[in-house]
């Protein structure tokens, strides 16, 4: 039983952070129909920023979030004006391969600067601490803090999108860019803003993630795929959808835990032999495939 609750809690916590990872992707996709393959690399930039700022200044890693957010916003805006804007003139194929080129570029630049070894945080207010919830369920403090902060970030983005004039302009651009332009909305600047917000939210997620996940230049691809799965499940362009889908995908990633629970309860021997931990991410990819084929709009999709 404690395995079940443990997996459930772990799935929800990691899911909240993954939802924040996917948020940037869904905003960028919603506003301008571009699939950003470099999304995981933005996350990596956020992780390195959080790690290096914390190490250089000696601050607690959780206090470096504003730095990461600023770096991410800047990165997103620069990418838009310097590169994505030119891609938009070409066909969809060019956008796919262009953002893939961006991904290769950022990844190998990181390899060139930081080397290929894993880096992890060892000091910090919460690093390594955990508390027990009873029934054998142990929650690492870093994960809990990251999940809570992720919820706050989500609320902030949701308020921005739904309660401010800028957010309305963004939504208008997403629904009909040409119409928005006729209404006097600077769509070009709105696109850049979408990239800025997207970049900032994913780098914040990176800075949260680095508290309990070691970083290397190749970390991005896995998160890009996870983020795609979340965005597909939640519906392309939907902010609340990303949140709930994040939690679902977090659960899927904790599937080995549920499998263990079933193995012990049912006591079937063949279940022991299945190397479930190797399929941790396979489930995510499979979920993506199944969702795309049977419900391409996702659970909360409003745009297709």
């Amino acid at each position: 039983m404690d395995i079940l609750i443990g997996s459930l809690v772990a799935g929800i916590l990691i899911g909240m952070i993954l939802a924040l990872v996917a948020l940037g992707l869904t905003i960028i996709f919603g506003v301008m129909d571009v699939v950003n393959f470099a999304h995981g690399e933005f996350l990596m930039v956020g992780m390195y920023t959080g790690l290096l700022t914390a190490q250089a200044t000696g601050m607690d890693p959780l206090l470096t979030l504003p730095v990461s957010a600023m770096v991410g916003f800047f990165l997103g805006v620069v990418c838009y004006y310097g590169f994505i804007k030119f891609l938009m003139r070409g066909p969809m194929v060019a956008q796919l391969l262009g953002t893939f080129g961006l991904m290769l570029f950022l990844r190998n630049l990181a390899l060139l600067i930081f080397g290929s070894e894993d880096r992890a945080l060892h000091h910090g207010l919460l690093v390594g601490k955990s508390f027990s919830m009873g029934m054998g369920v142990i929650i690492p403090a870093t994960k809990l803090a990251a999940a809570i902060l992720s919820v706050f970030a989500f609320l902030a983005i949701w308020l921005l999108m739904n309660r401010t004039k800028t957010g309305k302009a963004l939504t208008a651009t997403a629904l009909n860019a040409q119409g928005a332009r006729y209404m006097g909305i600077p769509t070009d600047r709105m696109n850049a803003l979408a990239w800025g917000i997207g970049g900032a939210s994913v780098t914040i997620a990176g800075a949260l993630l680095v508290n309990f996940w070691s970083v290397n230049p190749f970390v991005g691809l896995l998160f890009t795929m996870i983020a795609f799965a979340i965005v597909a499940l939640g519906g392309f362009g939907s902010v609340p959808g990303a949140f709930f889908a994040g939690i679902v995908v977090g659960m899927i990633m904790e599937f080995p835990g549920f499998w263990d629970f079933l193995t012990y309860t049912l006591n079937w021997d063949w279940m022991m032999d299945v190397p479930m931990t190797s399929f941790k991410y396979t489930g995510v990819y499979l979920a993506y495939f199944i969702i795309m084929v049977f419900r391409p709009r996702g659970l909360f999709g409003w745009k297709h």
Partner: protein
Amino acid sequence: METLRSAFDFSDFPRLDISIAGIIAIFLLVFPLFSSSAFAMATMIQFLMFSLYGMGWNTIGGYGGQVDLGKAQYVGIGAYTTAVLLIRWDIPFWFSMPLGICFAVVWSFIIGYPLFRLKGHYFAIATIATSLVLMDLFGVWEFVGASRGLEISPIKYHPPDFWRLIFKEDIYYYYVILCFFFIGILYVNGFRKSRLGFQLRSIKDNEDVARSLGINVHWAKIKTYAIATAFVSMVGSFHACYIKSIEPEDTMSLDISILIALMAMLGGAGSLWGPIIGAAVLIPLKSYLKEWLGAAAGLAGIDLVIYAMIIMLISALEPRGIWGIVEKRRRRKRQ
């Protein structure tokens, strides 16, 4: 007979193109006689392999406009079929390669049927997902060596062994893949003038119009996907015999899928020469950059940084690729 004649008929190209292609073909035939560098030879074999992958991708991605980013799974199926059959039952390459193509085509039908309900980005990302699922499965499947992969040890056989395609010198491999290369060009040349080829181009232009003309869009895409798969799986089998050691991580990774698509894109998707030009530019660039820069200490990754910058420049400035530039020039001259 008619299809055969159509495959050998290059008369719709300008005479200049045909003569350049002829000179290059002769160069490829005599290249090993002049070159003694093993590195240049390996690069050339890579070039031929990737232009074949690119030609396969071009049928569905270029003529059909369906961006497939999961071709590596078929490289894996072909390579693993050949390697497993050779190691376990000593079945030679020339039997295992068609068998590998059969497996790959069956798999392409299984996933192609649901996949082609999707369009655009959705299709592209879904192909990545299937490819990664297959890679994970091969990574734990003990029968095919799990994540350690398989190794064909050449000592057991007596090279040169033409049946099993086990050679010591690269020159044999070079001529085998060169044969495939010429057959591939002839096939694609026939394909683009076939009924299916015209159907696909009309699907690319406008799917609804194509459907209203009575074309079975879904089935046409699946058929072409199977053709593309056969190309890729064939070269995958060759890859197993040539490299002799295969792992899920390097035969089925996303990087290979993207490289295949990139090659065709860079040269010009939807044209006969596009994938070949793309491979001729990218493969030497990649291997020589790695040779010159990658080996230097402390510079790991700089070759790929330059490579990525070239990809970004091409996709931002000329999305129709090198062949697109040539065609634009020609159209301007005609006016």
